């Protein structure tokens, strides 16, 4: 196996062109899948026998929560690659991830609260998943705050990369400790957001939504990545070609 593909991924002009060509191939399928998932989730899936139509929130809550974790993991891997091999493009990927992840973490929290009110009788329940999600939001905010606090881009890249790697080691520990904490204080009457085995008519729209969100993340990342590369590459003649100027 040759490593040329890996080295080419470190070259800003190559990645810029690749990102431009790939974006529609991710963006349009994402749009179709999300629209299909919405239709499936809102209209095709039958109401849940316990939660009625309230369970339909799962089709937006679960993909947002999935997005929040997937984006953080992607960010940390990109940051680690950038730190170890000193690849500028990898740092640009990590920097592009954070705002996307933070916004979907926020969406997951809001939809979780909106799901909680009819199911638990209260908007906020210190449920381990919601609590972990809230902590994840603070991890994103810390990452973005650190980047914003350092003016020099290269230093911001490397410092925030260390934080992302430390954070990703901590995410499972935080999740475990929060689950452990919750199991100690669990009131027996509280209904959990547990997912029993879903019948196919409910499961398929969920999977479609998850895939759609994943592709959407890819498309958003590629657009942001191009912007990051343009801002970072100060005086490069290839930019002239790329912009067609």
């Amino acid at each position, binding site marked *: 196996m040759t490593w040329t593909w890996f080295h080419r991924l470190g070259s800003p002009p190559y990645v810029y062109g690749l990102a431009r060509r790939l974006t529609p191939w991710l963006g349009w399928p994402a749009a179709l899948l999300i629209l299909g998932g919405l239709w499936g989730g809102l209209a095709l899936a039958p109401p849940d026998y316990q939660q009625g139509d309230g369970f339909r929130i799962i089709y937006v809550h679960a993909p947002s929560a999935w997005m929040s974790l997937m984006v953080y993991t992607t960010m940390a891997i990109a940051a680690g690659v950038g730190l170890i091999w000193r690849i500028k493009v990898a740092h640009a990927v990590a920097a592009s991830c954070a705002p996307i992840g933070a916004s979907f973490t926020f969406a997951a929290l809001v939809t979780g609260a909106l799901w909680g009110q009819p199911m638990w009788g209260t908007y906020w329940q210190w449920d381990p998943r919601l609590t972990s999600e809230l902590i994840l939001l603070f991890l994103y905010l810390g990452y973005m705050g650190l980047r914003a606090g350092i003016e020099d881009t290269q230093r911001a890249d490397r410092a925030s990369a260390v934080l992302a790697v430390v954070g990703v080691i901590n995410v499972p520990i935080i999740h475990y400790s*929060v689950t452990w904490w919750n199991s100690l204080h669990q009131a027996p009457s509280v209904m959990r957001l547990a997912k029993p085995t879903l019948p196919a008519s409910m499961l398929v729209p969920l999977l479609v939504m998850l895939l759609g969100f994943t592709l959407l993340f890819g498309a958003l990342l590629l657009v942001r990545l191009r912007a990051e590369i343009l801002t970072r590459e100060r005086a490069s003649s290839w930019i002239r070609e790329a912009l067609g100027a």
Partner: protein
Amino acid sequence: MNKAQSSALRALAAPEWEPTIGTPALSSFEAARGALRRDLTLAFRQRGQLIQPLAFFAMVTLLFPLAVSPQLGRLREIAPGVLWSAELLASLLALEFLFRDDAQDGTLEQYALSGQSLTALLFAKTTAHWLLTGLPLALMAPLAALSLGAPASAVPGILLSVGLGSVTLSLIGAIGAALTLGMKRSGALLSLLTLPLSLPVLIFGARATQLAISGETLVAPLELLGALAVLGITLAPFAAAAGVRISLE
């Protein structure tokens, strides 16, 4: 630079510290021990600073009887939460002393350029920091717990859990302090970076304190606190060293 610091720097420049080109004259362990001794000496010449986190810890503890209720029965229930919130905040406050002076007078740059392992030197600095702030806080926590209605039988358990938990807090704090080194207004950011990472310590520590107060066995949360401390000792100094190098660039 004040007198205490300059004399300590002279001690650093003494013959046994003189670096030779190529191979360092000292082993990493000796260098780390020297850094540890230097930090302790410096700190004991400025004892006033050491009181501050302790006073802060006591002050936060005092807020709760005034804000909630003077009844010991009610205070005993919230005592673990009060203690650990105060502990997290006090250790956050103490982080200011960890690297600030050494970054300002160039000692950290000397460390980075010394050819010694920066990881070992920073581990020594963090150890000194724990001995100077974490350990006194751990010694004070039982007193605060007693004032919140904890029985005397809870003292060893509280001492142990706060002592063990504060090791991890110092190590996490070292990463945060290293990454925000050289920023002008880093206080709010530092808390945003370190507090989310400190939450597992808070959870296990508060649980251990709760069990100690109710007189039950606290082996399980202590083991978890110990596991966190071991993980922190093995990984955090590397992250802190990377952070210091990046901040000094």
